[in-house]
């Protein structure tokens, strides 16, 4: 099976021309998933029987006439999208028995378009982490180097696309959780503007930052999926009723005349030499294609990490208060009283990183500290948003490294959570401001993939599609695949 088939465009083309049936494609996907699992641990749940039945239904519909835009294409969900009747764990022991009675809006849209769900992808527990080491179901391994992390929190989704198990997988991005694992795994990760995709049925981490996204091999494929899952949803109070992304014009627009900002702060201390070189080479390619590079200053980005790590845990401590062992989720054995039920159920059900962030958030919201931490962090958030708004009066997109380093070794940063937090330096500001961003493969450093992050103004995903797709038309980095190991 050629790696070329593992793009959405190729699969749709092969299905529509009758070169392959959805059932046959699903069987190949399930075989690759089975071979990948012992190596990468990228799936929490595999759905063989229901996937085959969905595929058969797609083939039957195709035989009758026109079909949905994704009809017959296998995919995986990050395991925080609720799927009615299908286990949805959020990577946590707390929800290891949770079978939701309803589906996320994203799932409804993909199913309506004819997608074939083959499984639920591993992730950092409750999306808290940048390495996928904080999962109750064990760490995910990076397909490029099994001793390294795939990034997180959508690490399972990125690993599945990198290993060419599926052509696309969903993710969620609260502080970089789609873009950073995409960068670490050498695939494309697209986070749309906050409010573009409904959060209904997406288990909440930090509600003012969470946004559904997609991981695929190309920007074009990401754009096609986004067009399916985007749109107004009255069930999400922050869903926006804005015009759809004009994808076709964006895919054909030239890079000539594109104004690209190079934020000085994204190239600061701590950036790995090979990462810096790959990104500068990418910028040089844009210049060759007729774009211009403009130096940009984002002074408030110095506070993006502390602001994010106040706001996100504060919102998490509130959102996760609902997990108390009473209505659903894990319950401790033989509770002495109600308080003991709450405290032990939560201590047993949540992993260490989730507990750490709940404690941080609880402290930041507690009497006497709210103004000093939470209110001040929200003021800094406005400062950061204003920085970006000023930048977008001068340029169309911003470009820089998605992460200062390539994928690090498993366990390397487990003992030092601050080191892990600081590695989010180039991604969290984008969430604080609610902007769209994409990470595209742009080279290698020490044999490991490097991601180029492109960021645009609110609702200007079209500019990211032009910039990312245009780059992938003249480069080959997105076609690189990790070594095939054993039968994968």
């Amino acid at each position, binding site marked *: 099976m050629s790696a070329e088939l593992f793009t959405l465009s190729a699969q749709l083309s092969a299905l529509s021309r009758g070169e392959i049936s959805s059932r046959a494609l699903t069987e190949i996907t399930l075989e690759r998933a089975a071979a990948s699992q012992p190596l990468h641990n990228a799936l929490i749940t595999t759905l063989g029987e229901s996937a085959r039945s969905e595929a058969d239904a797609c083939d039957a519909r195709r035989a009758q006439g026109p079909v949905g835009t994704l009809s017959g294409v296998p995919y995986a969900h990050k395991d925080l999208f609720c799927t009615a009747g299908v286990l949805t764990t959020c990577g946590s022991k707390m929800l290891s028995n949770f079978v939701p009675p309803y589906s996320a809006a994203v799932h409804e849209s993909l199913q309506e378009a004819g997608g074939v769900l083959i499984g639920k992808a591993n992730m950092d527990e409750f999306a808290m982490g940048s390495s996928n080491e904080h999962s109750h179901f064990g760490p995910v391994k990076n397909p490029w180097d099994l001793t390294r992390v795939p990034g997180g929190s959508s690490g399972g989704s990125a690993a599945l696309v990198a290993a060419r198990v599926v052509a696309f997988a969903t993710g969620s991005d609260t502080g970089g959780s789609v873009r950073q694992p995409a960068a670490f795994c050498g695939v494309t990760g697209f986070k749309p503007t906050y409010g573009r995709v409904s959060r209904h049925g997406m288990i909440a981490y930090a509600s003012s930052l969470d946004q559904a996204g997609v991981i695929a091999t190309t920007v074009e494929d990401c754009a096609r999926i986004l067009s399916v899952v985007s749109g107004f949803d009255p069930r999400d109070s922050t869903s926006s009723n804005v015009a759809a992304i004009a994808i076709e014009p964006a895919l054909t627009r030239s890079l000539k005349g594109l104004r690209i900002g190079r934020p000085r702060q994204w190239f600061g201390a701590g950036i790995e030499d090979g990462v810096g070189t790959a990104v500068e080479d990418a910028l040089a390619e844009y210049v060759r294609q007729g774009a211009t590079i403009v130096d940009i200053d984002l002074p408030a980005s110095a506070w993006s990490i502390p602001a994010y790590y106040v706001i996100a845990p504060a919102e998490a401590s509130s959102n996760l208060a609902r997990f108390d062992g*009473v*209505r659903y*989720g894990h319950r401790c054995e033989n509770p002495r009283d109600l308080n003991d039920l709450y405290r032990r159920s939560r*201590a047993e059900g949540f992993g260490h990183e989730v507990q750490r962030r709940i*404690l941080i958030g609880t402290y930041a919201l507690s009497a006497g500290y709210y103004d000093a931490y939470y209110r001040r962090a*929200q*003021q800094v958030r406005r400062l950061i948003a204003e920085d970006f708004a000023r930048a977008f009066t001068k340029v169309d997109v911003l470009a820089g490294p998605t992460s200062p380093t390539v994928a690090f070794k498993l366990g390397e940063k487990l003992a030092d*959570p601050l080191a892990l*937090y600081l590695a989010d330096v180039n991604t969290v500001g984008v969430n604080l401001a609610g902007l769209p961003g994409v990470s595209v493969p742009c080279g290698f450093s020490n044999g490991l993939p490097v991601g180029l992050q492109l960021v645009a103004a609110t609702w200007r995903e079209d500019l990211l599609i032009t910039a990312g797709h245009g780059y992938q038309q003249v480069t080959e980095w997105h076609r690189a695949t990790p070594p095939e190991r054993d039968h994968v």
Partner: protein
Amino acid sequence: MSVDRALVRSIAELARLSISPQHEEAAAIELAAVLDLFEALSAAPVDALQPLSHPGDPELRLRDDVAVAGDQRNAFEVLAPAMSGGYYLVPKVIE
């Protein structure tokens, strides 16, 4: 910033999390390191700025006051750790 074990116990009580005595010291060290990181926020020139709670300051919509989801008691009961007669069961609250 210094964080002692008593403060950890107090936050854990607010968060309804049980922390064993042997983990209190480690939690105090971790929390202190994170709070040191937060100190940088005090240098930001933000006193005149309104806090930004959501990107773009969206106006939160109100839904029509109409029930849309029907009775789903049976679906929810299946998920509960313990139910009886349509009620969630918890340890005795009133002695």
